[in-house]
């Protein structure tokens, strides 16, 4: 025998095929002496005797005679009762690898079924086992659980899912009744991803209405945009979700004249205030260019140059700017001093009535000033001042007319100092800044209409853009007219908010779907 070829051992019988596709082999096969019968399918030893004797009854015989059926009959022959006289020792059949593999498979199946039954059948474990990820913070809080209970929703998963509290059998039943169903491939392929589902009813138990951003917007399922189980912060809607309507020509033409929009960076139209050439209707006269670039603009106290930040200061949130206020932002230069010789005296601001009353009470105002400054002869002081005014304006009526209606920037009216007295500013008259009309009961000043938000539905935060110079977005130095809306065009935003700029540029960066956001309430 070749040592490298153990199969050619003459002691081994090649014809003795071991039948590896059967589950059991003879226990003596490992000794090279398997019995001829072999084990049965259930692993029981089939060995009984070396042969199965055959009964032969010749004519005329009644009992007959048992004969050995071996090829070479044994010497002793069968026993009188027909049993073989040479019984074979029984063995313990050995499982084949095939049977061991079947047993391993069976064990794996049993373990899998047991694990599933335990994990799906024990309520405290079911939710944790099934949940495909962490719920958002609002939906995993104790407050949500309490609200769900108040609004008669189920506890745990059942607050949103109809199968939330179902055991294994209930899950199967719910799955079988789902629409589209498990076997409904056509339904799965053609179903609308945004179509409202039964789960929306659970959302609306707590959220009062969907408040779509457009009255004619098609009804959309909450879960189409709000993907749960994606972590503590609910995932923001993607452009694809907006694209469901805004990228669909039929939907858009049905509800508005807006073009199809897929992404801000690709086909978002120019902002409406530019495309439609909106003008600021405010009647207040203001020249940004003059205030930012002119040498005639006085320095602020401390020698600081007037800049954007002096008038435009962020609100508490930092997102938007506080409205410009005369007392805070304008009076430092425009002190409303009407008497060049008496810079201490200034007109009140904000009410025609107050200004008129002030002018009509000028003697008293001068007398109060004389007292404040400790003048020896108050009457002489007042008369002197009034005489000076009279010489400049001619009469009280003329003074009042000029205060309200004059817009002249030359002449004696400009000789008025600032509040600090350090520099000077002009006060030609209210009409220099305001729209002043002659009314039946005197001058009428149109109240300035200072619009705080031009794009009220858009999200924006100045705080997020704090590192960018104002002029990069707001071209104020080129604006000479109040009617100019000094907001940036889309192209300016695209410098950053685009793939090339590398800053987030999805729809929800600026837009809100819900308008206003749905409130949460107990029923």
């Amino acid at each position, binding site marked *: 025998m070749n040592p*490298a070829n*153990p199969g050619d051992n003459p002691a081994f019988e090649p014809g003795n095929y071991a039948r590896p596709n059967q589950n059991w082999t003879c226990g003596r096969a490992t000794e090279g002496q398997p019995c001829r019968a072999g084990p049965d399918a259930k692993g029981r030893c089939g060995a009984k005797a070396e042969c199965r004797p055959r009964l032969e009854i010749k004519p005329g015989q009644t009992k007959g005679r048992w004969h050995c059926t071996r090829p070479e009959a044994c010497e002793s022959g069968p026993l009188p009762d027909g049993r073989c006289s040479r019984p074979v020792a029984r063995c313990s059949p050995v499982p084949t690898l095939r049977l061991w593999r079947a047993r391993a498979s069976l064990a794996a199946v049993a373990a899998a079924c047991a694990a599933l039954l335990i994990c799906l059948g024990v309520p405290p474990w079911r939710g944790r*086992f099934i949940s495909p990820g962490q719920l958002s913070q609002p939906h995993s809080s104790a407050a949500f659980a309490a609200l769900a209970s108040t609004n008669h929703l189920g506890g745990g998963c059942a607050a949103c899912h109809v199968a939330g509290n179902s055991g294994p059998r209930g899950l199967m039943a719910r799955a079988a009744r*789902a629409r589209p169903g498990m076997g409904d491939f056509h339904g799965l*392929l053609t179903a609308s991803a945004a179509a409202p589902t039964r789960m929306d009813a659970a959302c609306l138990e707590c959220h009062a209405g969907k408040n779509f951003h457009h009255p004619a917007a098609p009804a959309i399922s909450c879960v189409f945009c709000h993907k749960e189980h994606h972590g503590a912060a609910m995932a923001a809607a993607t452009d694809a979700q907006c694209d469901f309507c805004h990228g669909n020509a039929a939907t858009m033409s049905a509800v508005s004249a807006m073009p199809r929009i897929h992404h801000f960076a690709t086909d978002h139209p120019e902002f409406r205030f530019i495309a439609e050439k909106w003008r600021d209707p405010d009647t207040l006269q203001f020249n940004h260019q003059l205030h930012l670039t002119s040498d005639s603009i006085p320095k602020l106290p401390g020698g600081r140059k007037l800049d954007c930040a002096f008038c435009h200061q962020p609100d508490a949130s930092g997102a938007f700017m506080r409205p410009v206020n005369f007392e805070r932002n304008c009076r430092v230069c425009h002190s409303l001093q009407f008497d060049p010789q008496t810079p201490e005296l200034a007109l009140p601001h904000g009410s025609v009535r107050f200004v008129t009353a002030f002018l009509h009470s000028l003697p008293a105002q001068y007398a109060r000033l004389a007292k404040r400054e400790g003048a020896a002869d108050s009457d002489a002081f007042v008369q002197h001042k009034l005489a000076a005014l009279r010489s400049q304006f001619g009469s009280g009526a003329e003074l009042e007319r000029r205060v309200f209606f004059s817009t002249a920037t030359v002449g004696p009216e400009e000789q008025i100092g600032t509040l600090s007295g350090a520099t000077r500013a002009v006060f030609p008259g209210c009409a220099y800044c305001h729209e002043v009309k002659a009314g039946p009961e005197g001058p009428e000043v149109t109240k300035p209409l200072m619009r705080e938000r031009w794009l009220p539905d858009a999200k924006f935060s100045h705080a997020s853009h704090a590192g960018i110079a104002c002029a990069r977005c707001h071209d104020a130095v080129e604006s000479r007219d109040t009617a100019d809306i000094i907001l940036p065009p889309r192209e300016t935003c695209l410098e950053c908010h685009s793939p090339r700029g590398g800053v987030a540029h999805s729809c929800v960066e600026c837009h809100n779907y819900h308008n206003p956001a749905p409130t949460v309430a107990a029923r």
Partner: protein
Amino acid sequence: MRRFRRQHLLGTTALIVAAIAALLLHRAFHRTLPDYAFVTGWILFAAMLVLAVYNARKKLPFLPLGNSESWLQIHIYLGFFTVLLFFIHLNFRLPRGWLDISLASLFALVAASGVAGLFLSRILPRRLSTRGGEVIHEQIAPLRHVLKTESEMIALGPAASSPAVAEFYTRRLAPFFAGPKNAWAHLFESRRPVHSLLAELEDLRRTGSEAERGALEKLADLVRRKDGLDYHRALQLTLKLWLFIHVPLTYALLIFTLAHIAIVFAFSGGAQ
């Protein structure tokens, strides 16, 4: 060999084309097709069923369902493609949640064991051919018994007359012939254990009498043949044992998949 290469080329080409097509379809539809995860899930499940049917096909050789070799080729290439389908179904993200993680882990184990089995079935038969000899796995135990009997006859039988050989046999060779030995060494192609044993035999032979030398040479021959049997057993058993992971886990995977399908539909928006 040429046929095998042609099959390999054809299968690899088909796999690459299918993979590219699947990735292109994924790119085109994963954002637009409603219920995309349901669709990819069903396709993945169908592929897994086809892969699992291969085992059943082997048990039904009498059915005219194509030959086993073709089924094996389909099983291998479809197996690789199913791994891609699995990632597409997951949208190339990691699974979250215990059920999904369990399912993904089972899939990974089944796929990894399949790749390991493919690797073993490509490497080990070649090593067995290189070593020489052919023996059916089920015949190894009887053959080992024969070798054990022969060695006992030489060392301890009526014709044996050397106490030194008998002592050496009892101490060192009897455990060696008693059962399979050195499986790990054979797997890693190390012959150090048998060389060590043969070296001890050679030491004994050099100092032995003429009769002892003859007996020891016969024993050395039996040791080599037993080592050959052990080598075959180790490699052939490895070729069979990887299926002890691949097949049972496949059944467990299918059961978890069925549970996953039921749960996904029961918790879908359309659940009633």
